[in-house]
């Protein structure tokens, strides 16, 4: 990433999505729901272990956060985590303003920023050079938005988001490593397992 020095992440360490995904999942002790965005984001979530409360998005690029918001509204006592990539979020930035307007205390958004559309061939995203995801989130009214400076900081921010409530957005610079596996592409099975995990299907 060749970043503008004014970019909020210019001092942040470049980390790894699969490693951070595993670290995040290890903090989930209360059957929190996790919505994995399209591509490598949900592939690494899948490979981190298939919790019944995980949902994996196979299409509809950009909708991980709106879907997570819907779950958060339907189940206000359950914490919901959205995992999303920078390219996906740039496609649907307006959802940050909607989340800020609704202020769901039980929603945490994690944005993996590798500065590229990795799965389509590594074309650069605007966040590689100019767009600062955290500044955008704050500009939308998401006050609790921060760059994770390293792995320990990521875990601290993530644990605080679960404990203190939000909405919270945590952005992490990540490397260009591809996803570590692939999700089974069965949308009905994914939805059914998730609903059983949330107690909305038997």
């Amino acid at each position: 990433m060749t970043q503008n020095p004014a970019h909020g992440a210019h001092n942040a360490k470049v980390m790894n999505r699969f490693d951070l995904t595993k670290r995040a999942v290890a903090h989930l002790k209360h059957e929190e729901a996790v919505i994995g965005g399209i591509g490598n984001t949900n592939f690494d979530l899948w490979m981190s272990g298939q919790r019944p409360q995980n949902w994996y998005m196979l299409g509809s690029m950009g909708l991980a956060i709106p879907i997570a918001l819907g779950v958060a509204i339907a189940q206000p006592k359950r914490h919901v985590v959205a995992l999303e990539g920078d390219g996906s979020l740039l496609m649907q930035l307006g959802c940050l303003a909607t989340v800020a307007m609704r202020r769901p205390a039980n929603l945490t958004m994690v944005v993996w920023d590798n500065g590229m559309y990795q799965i389509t061939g590594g074309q650069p995203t605007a966040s590689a050079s100019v767009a600062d995801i955290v500044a955008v989130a704050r500009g939308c009214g998401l006050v609790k938005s921060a760059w994770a400076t390293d792995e320990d900081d990521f875990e601290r921010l993530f644990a605080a988001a679960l404990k203190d409530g939000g909405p919270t957005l945590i952005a992490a610079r990540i490397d260009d490593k591809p996803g570590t596996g692939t999700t089974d592409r069965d949308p009905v099975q994914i939805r059914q397992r998730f609903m059983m995990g949330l107690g909305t299907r038997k």
Partner: protein
Amino acid sequence: MTDMEKPWHQVVLETLKKNDIGLVPYVPDRVFTPLIKALHADDFFTTFPCTREEEAVGIVTGAHMGGMRAAVLMQTSGFGTIANAIASLVCPSQIPAIIFVSERGTLGEFNLGQALVCRTMRPVLDSLGIETHTITRHDELAFIVDRSIKQALATQAPVTFILSPLLTGGKVFAA
């Protein structure tokens, strides 16, 4: 008061409530304004504007999986933006998304762009095999909406209600 004596938007609101549809994200539309105002005024409903129609479709999908029934409101041109969300999310995941579209582009449209995007709507719905009702008559409104919501939920399939200017009055233009 009979359904025939109530305005169309009151019939829709009451039918949503009767079917426990408590969440209604929307992208605003002039013709839907009385419905949107009434939803905001009723504590039963959680209703709010979204920045894009596909965002609202995502919210409805998440809410369904979380056990809350939800419908989405939009205009014809907004439907033109959600083909990917319904084809790659709603249909393959079997989400009973309840979609209300305020029909523009016909019966006196003045904006060519609206008229053209209107022509894309039914072919998209047909190609995906989505249950669709164009509602033109007040006396059929409650029956169609109530029965079709029940069918959507029972069969885990989306349904689209296209509310014609014949029902709503549409948007009136100076000639």
